[in-house]
């Protein structure tokens, strides 16, 4: 697998400069900020795409407010690592190095998207980046990382596989089957719960009595922790030890708490929670937190950040333009990829009916 992304491997610094990312603790923040800012801007553009009527449907789940989980964890993953995400996975994929254009095109259901318009927001994937797929089934993508962990172990790839999912998936039984097997087989696997407090309209304490989520992982023998998702550096540090230990064969679990700033999907106005709560919740803004810290710790000036933000905004505007002007998939592509290339495609109904109706 050849990977290009902004993980540990470094590459460009966030302020537009080039060269290796600095190695010490504090100076990783610019990188992390840039990643989070790009996620934020991308998600805002997804909202815009929808408003413009250019998205494929309305099942678009924005990860605004959750950027620290994506940025912090992807920052400690390596090139050879793999992952699956839930339906709210744009940020994770971006943090991993996805191209906004191809993502946006996929969200618009276009041929030039990552999945040629078949997958959309909820089923986006890219094997080049080790993205084994987003999933529209809550919990559906979790066991795959156990399988990926098996492969990694057997093939001595030194790679970790990470399952990203929401707090809602904590109530799906398959998570426990997966954690149990990962622990039993000492697999290089990490389970990351992005606890944005809600599963659709259900607050976490309305879904379970046991809100200390990592305790469940401990009870299955995993290396379980929780972390606040406000400070991306804290997330990254916590994630680093978990991912590193997983690489050594001790599977881990990390719950990152944050707040889902907007509705569940594009049609949801969140009537089930109060405005006060939302205002309070949005104060836990990891992008703003990182930006403030960059300034207060003099890692970047207001001006440089303004320039960066503007550049990112343009990049994302361009992604929208790309998506809007991209081609819809051809109707013939409907029968492609049900089975592997070279295998006969399913017979289109019309051909069958032609034969039946015009027989002899």
């Amino acid at each position: 697998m050849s990977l290009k992304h902004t993980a540990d491997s470094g590459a460009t610094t966030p302020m537009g400069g080039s060269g290796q990312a600095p190695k010490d603790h504090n100076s990783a923040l610019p990188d992390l900020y840039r990643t989070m800012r790009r996620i934020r801007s991308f998600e805002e553009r997804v909202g815009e795409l929808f408003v413009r009527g250019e998205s494929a449907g309305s099942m678009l789940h924005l990860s605004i407010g959750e950027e620290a989980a994506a940025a912090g964890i992807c920052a400690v993953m390596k090139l050879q690592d793999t992952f699956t995400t839930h339906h709210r996975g744009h940020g994770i994929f971006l943090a991993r190095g996805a191209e906004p254009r191809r993502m946006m095109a996929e969200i618009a259901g276009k041929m030039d998207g990552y999945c040629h318009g078949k997958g959309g927001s909820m089923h986006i994937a890219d094997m080049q980046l080790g993205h084994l797929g987003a999933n529209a089934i809550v919990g559906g993508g979790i066991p795959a990382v156990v399988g990926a962990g098996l492969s990694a172990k057997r093939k001595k790839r030194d790679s970790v596989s990470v399952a990203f999912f929401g707090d809602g998936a904590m109530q799906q039984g398959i998570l426990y089957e997966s954690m149990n097997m990962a622990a039993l087989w000492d697999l290089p696997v990490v389970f990351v719960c992005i606890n944005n407090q809600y599963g659709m309209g259900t607050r976490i304490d309305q879904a379970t009595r046991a809100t200390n989520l990592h305790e469940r992982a401990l009870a299955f023998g995993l290396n379980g922790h929780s972390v606040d998702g406000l400070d991306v550096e804290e997330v990254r540090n916590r994630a680093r030890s978990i991912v590193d230990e997983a690489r050594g064969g001790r599977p881990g679990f990390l719950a990152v708490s944050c707040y889902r700033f907007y509705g569940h999907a594009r049609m949801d106005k969140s009537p089930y929670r109060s405005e006060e709560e939302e205002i309070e919740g949005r104060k836990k803004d990891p992008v703003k937190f990182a930006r403030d810290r960059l300034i207060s710790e003099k890692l970047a000036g207001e001006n440089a950040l303004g320039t960066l933000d503007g550049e990112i905004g343009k990049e994302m505007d361009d992604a929208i333009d790309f998506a809007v002007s991209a081609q819809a998939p051809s109707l013939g592509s409907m029968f492609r990829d049900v089975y592997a290339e070279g295998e006969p495609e399913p017979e289109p109904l019309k051909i069958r009916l032609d034969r039946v109706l015009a027989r002899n």
Partner: protein
Amino acid sequence: MVSMTYRDALRRAIDEAMAEDDDIVVIGEEVGRYGGAYGVTKDLIKTYGPERMIDTPISEPGIVGVAVGAAMTGLRPIAELMYIDFLGMSMDQLANQAAKIRYMFGGQIGVPMVLRTQGGTGRSAGAQHSQSLEGWIMHTPGLRLAMPATVADAYHLLRHSLTLPDPVVFIEHKALYAQKEEVDLDAPALPWGKAAIRRRGDDLVIVTYSRQLRFAMEAAGQLAERGVEATVIDLRTLNPLDFDTIRMEVERIGKAMVVCEGVLTAGVAAELASRITEECFDFLEQPVARVAGEDVPIAVSPALEAASVPGVDLIRDVGERLVRW
């Protein structure tokens, strides 16, 4: 007569049934406070409270299993799967437990529950949120299966389902919720298990259900403009299946088409076509034409999505060719 949506008719059925029968509880994700992902149970929590409008965690196997246990012990649960696509998680509790309990236990007890869910295409929701999986249910003895196409049936079939002694899978269509019709819900309804003849003609029988009824009716209208008169049968329930009505019309007319949204191979269309053929063989001038979903997953692209299930044009064209041939 009042003008009402499919969504509101469902809601009214639940509301009235709950008012009459204290044992009815609704169990599912977002059914209470949220009011249902498609708004069907909106505000019912205000009347019935969280004890009867039970919001669950995201635990599909568990939800159906809990409903089974509740139904065995005196409640009449309406369990809800937000999308029929999640059936794969719950199929053990549904097919191995709910469907078989009466039989395995020698008739001691039944499982009077209704599993409400919705399926079908129409929202660019992709392969895991757009399926029509009634074929799996129809292939499972012990499960009743209702698939209303009209506003009145959304009401009547759900009301009736909530009186039955056996588990009912009640599948709504996501593209129908906003559909409005003039209805008089107090007028007598067709009996449970009886198909409705929605249009009468002498040239062709179209057998269908759920949203495809809308397409079939529109196609029949277009066919009429071309001088082809179709009988359109709306099955309403697939278990029980009212074959007598199908038989009568097919024997009278001799040409039949079945229309389903689910994928073609080994699905409901196959059952209907083979049943018609075996029972009405000598009356058939033509093979029964199966019009169904393509044998592919559903893509997110709106163009591909729409093309992968039957539509008005296809039904009309097949109808015309069946008759003119």
